């Protein structure tokens, strides 16, 4: 297994999930057009284990790729009906290969730029003190071609514009706190022990309210005040009050 040297190269050393995959492909001397997906997925996942969960924002991109790999692996494991064999079925890896190749090109291009950067660090251009020149050459009148009348006309135009104000719409921003939403959810749950996720939102709830309500729900789940379950994949999410809170 890879476990022995897993930490030799840290995840932070990779520019992203594609970079890590390319590394694994090179390391295993794999033909990029025929990736042994099971093997690579296993190795990829063992790198993922080293993720520092404090930096989920950054790590999430690696997790997305892990999910993609698992999905491809699953599709490849599915038995193919024999009658389709004659017609070449789309290789589930195809999209990933295209992405990897494209990414690889730009990695090459980045190396080219790095080389040029190194060359240019040895070359120096004169830096001129432009302020010095400005002092030397008498400043020009920036409004040489304008008179006070132009200024006056410009102001009059503005005043006239102001007299017929364009209709403006006040968009008020709701002030919603997570605490407030948490209290709302708890209130609803004390009335009915079980409610659905959708019940949390009144009709026409603003985007902001939906987001804050969702955050409040997550917080309540974290505090173990409420629990939730979902019977099947796109089914209703049921939220319930945990017994210890009754």
């Amino acid at each position, binding site marked *: 297994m890879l476990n022995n040297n897993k930490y030799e190269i840290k995840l932070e050393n990779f520019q992203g999930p594609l970079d890590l995959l390319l590394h694994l492909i090179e390391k295993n001397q794999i033909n990029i057009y025929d990736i042994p997906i099971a093997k690579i997925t296993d190795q990829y996942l063992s790198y993922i284990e080293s993720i520092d969960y404090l930096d989920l924002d950054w790590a999430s991109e690696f997790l997305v790729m892990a999910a993609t790999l698992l999905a491809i692996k699953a599709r490849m494991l599915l038995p193919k009906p024999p009658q389709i064999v004659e017609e070449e079925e789309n290789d589930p890896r195809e999209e990933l290969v295209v992405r990897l190749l494209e990414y690889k090109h730009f990695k090459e291009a980045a190396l080219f730029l790095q080389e040029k950067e190194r060359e240019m660090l040895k070359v120096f251009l004169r830096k001129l003190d432009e302020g010095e020149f400005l002092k030397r050459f008498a400043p020009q009148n920036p409004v040489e071609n304008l008179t006070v009348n132009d200024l006056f006309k410009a*102001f009059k135009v503005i005043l006239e514009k102001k007299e017929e104000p364009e209709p403006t719409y006040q968009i008020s921003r709701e002030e919603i706190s997570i605490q407030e939403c948490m209290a709302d959810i708890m209130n609803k749950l004390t009335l009915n022990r079980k409610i659905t996720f959708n019940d949390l939102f009144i009709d026409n709830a603003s985007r902001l309210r939906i987001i804050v309500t969702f955050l409040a729900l997550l917080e309540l789940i974290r505090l173990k005040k409420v629990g939730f379950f979902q019977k099947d994949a796109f089914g209703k999410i049921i939220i319930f009050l945990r017994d210890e809170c009754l």
Partner: protein
Amino acid sequence: MLFSEDIKAAVESLLFISPEPLSVLDISKLVNIEPKDVEQIILEIQEEYKKATHGFHLIELAGGYIFATKEKYEPFVEKLLKPQLSTLSHAALETLAIIAYKQPVTRSEIEAIRGVKVDKILTTLVEKNLIEEVGRKEGPGRPIIYGTTKDFLKYFGLKELSQLPEYHKLIEKTAQDED
């Protein structure tokens, strides 16, 4: 020749790139050669750039040496470096007019009138020395307040702001608008 071409070129590269005049001692330390050898090289470089085909030469300045364009080519250099005469854009003119008539005025007050952001325009007008920060308004965020400059009066040939056309009439008018 006494000196290797390379050492001479190294000295030349330093004189070329240095923003300040370099003294014989500076160069001597940087290239690690004797001061008298530096002096010899400087003489050679000066001789070289005296030729009429060169547009710049090595002059002695403030205890050191520095490359400078020859006086003769000053008109060309001026044409290149002198800031281009730029006409104020219409947006800049409007903004300037608002400041002239309503000063002291904050950015957000100007934006309320013009209905668009004016931060870049204000920077330009400050750079052109037509307006300046005259203080900060009391209140939340203590926003900067702007006014026109002395140069503004000079450029427009005014003795004082009240010489602006219909200054008093317009000032009254805008004061009423505020109510």
